[in-house]
């Protein structure tokens, strides 16, 4: 699943950075909204639902692009355990980007809440109303959110490691603009 290109294609890079903003916002909105009883709660919930669906759509587009354009190869001198971690982290990110919105949607369905996107526009229910399903999905949504954030922290640490310590072109492969440090 690799390409001889040194960088991800422009649409892939655009999606990466757009989704980075969306997902980080989403995680902060999520932990913030469940911690408050102020009117901010409603505002945050109203953003959380459509933003989650937007992330789901973007993630599916991104996965399609990934199959079409593939990814640049990792530096050949990268130690095997790091290579493995890098590959596994990509599976984890795709699973979370697609899974979290679906779990959230399913959780609301199982609780008989309408999934309102905006105004009168809402999504159909995807699961039967069930306390046990709701509980399972709610817990998954809650714990996976922290796992997602932990993955992002590791991702940031890893890319800074590539850029600042190894300077091996991995950052440039996804950098939003062409930087002076061309991948070698």
């Amino acid at each position, binding site marked *: 699943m690799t390409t001889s290109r040194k960088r991800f294609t422009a649409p892939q890079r655009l999606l990466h950075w757009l989704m980075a903003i969306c997902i980080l916002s989403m*995680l*902060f909105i999520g*932990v*913030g*909204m*469940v*911690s*408050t*009883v*102020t*009117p*901010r*709660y*409603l505002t945050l*919930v109203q953003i959380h639902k459509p933003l989650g669906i937007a992330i789901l759509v973007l993630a599916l587009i991104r996965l399609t692009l990934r199959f079409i354009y593939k990814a640049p190869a990792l530096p050949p001198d990268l130690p095997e355990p790091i290579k493995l971690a890098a590959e596994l982290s990509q599976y984890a990110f795709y699973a979370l980007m697609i899974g979290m919105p679906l779990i959230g949607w399913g959780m609301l369905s199982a*609780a*008989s*809440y*309408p999934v309102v996107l905006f*105004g*009168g526009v*809402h999504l*159909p229910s995807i699961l039967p*109303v*069930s*306390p*046990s399903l*709701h*509980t399972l999905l*709610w*817990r998954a949504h809650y714990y996976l959110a922290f796992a997602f*954030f932990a993955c*992002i*922290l590791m991702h*940031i*640490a890893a890319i*800074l*490691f590539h850029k*600042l*310590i190894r300077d091996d072109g991995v950052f440039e492969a996804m950098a939003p603009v062409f930087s002076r440090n061309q991948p070698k």
Partner: protein
Amino acid sequence: MVQSSASPKSFRLGPVVIIAVVVGVAAIAFAYTAGWLSPHRLTPKKVVAALAPPGGPALGHRRNHAKGICFTGTFEANGDGSALSKAPVFVRGQYPVVGRFNLGTADPNAADAMVRVRGIGIRITTPDGQEWRSAMIDAPIFPVSTPQGFYELLTASASKDPDAMKKFIAAHPEFITFLGWAKSAPWTGSYAEERYNSLDSFLFVDGSGAKHPIRWSLVPAAQPVSVPPDELTKRGPDFLEQEITQRVAASPQRWSVIVTVANPGDPTADPNKAWPADRRTVEVGTLTVQQIEPERDGPCLNINFDPTVLPSGITTSDDPFPAARSAAYSRSYNSRTAEASYYPGTTTGAKQ
């Protein structure tokens, strides 16, 4: 960033510090947002915990208004609400309703005669799938003016300090108006004889986009008959549920849905303040309760009557309560659905 010049060639401290700082700052920002660094933040968790009786919450039940009975019925809109709100629910027609009569207590086994506040939750669904959920009570005003005040009321009521309530009232004199109602208002012998009030203010948005601050009430068709509390005590712990079951089986019970429109300057942000009695009212339709069902396996059991589930055409106002209620109801719902196995096999099983 200055890189450490003292480090050996093979290991530079600077980049490691940068990485640690970036990750650390992100983690702290996350923890702050989650409220972990703000012990004084009023969280849904705190509010819901404060509702629990001394022995802990009744597992599997709603954390407040824990005792209740389901019903199904209809809302028949007469079309007059459409002048104020574009919500489809006000278009002349009949829409299905799932609801729940309930008592304002955290104890699902409370004796009906002991609970001052009675309530109703309704969910009206229109064919396009939009929902209007509302949870109302029979008091004409809310006990306090702010969610923080409500939390303080709960903590004062549960406090062992004999002066706790005195201190609370000194800080929240608006509670005295509510106490006046609680002490003097007549009691009735039926859920069907109660008037239920939204108390909270919402905004109706009409077809032109204009917003109208409003409150709504369910006004019973049944004539309220005042019954002394001593007399109610003799009717047994579940007399309200038995009475409404028999009454609805005999004939459907009706309420007029009345919308009260605020005048400019009326207090919309404070459900403790009633609006003057001369405000314009619009009857928008009739709620008919057609069938009563026990809560266990009943159609209302797994519904959260979250007052912020609103159709397009109704929105929240500057009243801070619907948001606070939504946050707390959600927490209650998450807890009780996770405890569903604790919900008794039959609603009255323990007592039979």
